[in-house]
């Protein structure tokens, strides 16, 4: 419940060939507290990320919307086909409107 979200970590190749399919991995440290858990007879305050958005050259490529069954420290893997040098932009938002961002670049040629 500190003032800002943790710094996300991205694993993506630095370069790729035209048409290559590349694996993108994302990780952000976050408790993903649902508010349903109790400790010492008191409910632990809810603290959840709502979504992660991945943009590819400015266009939204995939959005993950999180609900209670998503684990702490959300980790995701997905696959992109790279046609040209690609700028990736990652955004996480929590239920209080706080935002974490990360960028990556995959060079072609």
């Amino acid at each position, binding site marked *: 419940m500190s003032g800002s979200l943790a710094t996300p970590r991205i694993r993506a190749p630095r370069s790729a060939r035209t048409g290559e*399919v590349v694996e993108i991995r994302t990780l952000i440290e976050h408790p993903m507290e*649902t508010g*349903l*858990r*109790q*400790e010492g007879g008191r409910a632990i305050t809810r603290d959840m990320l709502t979504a992660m958005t991945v943009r*590819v050259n400015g*266009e*939204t*490529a*995939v*959005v*993950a*919307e*999180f*609900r*209670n*069954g*998503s*684990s*702490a420290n*959300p*980790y*995701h*893997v*997905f*696959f*992109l*086909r790279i046609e040209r040098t690609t700028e990736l932009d990652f955004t996480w938002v929590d239920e209080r409107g706080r935002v974490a961002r990360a960028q990556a670049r995959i060079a072609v040629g």
Partner: protein
Amino acid sequence: MRRRVLLTIMALPWPVLADELQTAIEAAIGATRPEPGGITLRAPERAENGGQVPITILVESPQTAAEHVTAIHLFATRNPTPGVASFRLTPALARAEVQTRIRLAEDQRILVLAQMSDGRVRQVAAEIRVASGGCV
């Protein structure tokens, strides 16, 4: 830790009402009737740690502008709340695959629904046993 987890789970209203699952499914896909097949779901038969269960979902799709997966919805049928995550996909993804980690409070069935760009919905389910329930 394990003892605390068990006590936590027992303090919750239990088991989850099937109505709640039905409501969550309808919120995701409306009244469309899902068809089986067309999805590969990789998940452990037995998860040591219910708090971090690795899941891979791969939907058969060419991922073109004309024919692609628009959303993948994941539900845990016997968690206190059934919603796990929804993934909104576009043809920018080379294949309709996502890998994630989920929480399972106890042994249960997980359900995957995939919405296609032509409006069809595919579904697949898997039973997962959980050695140590996740803190949901």
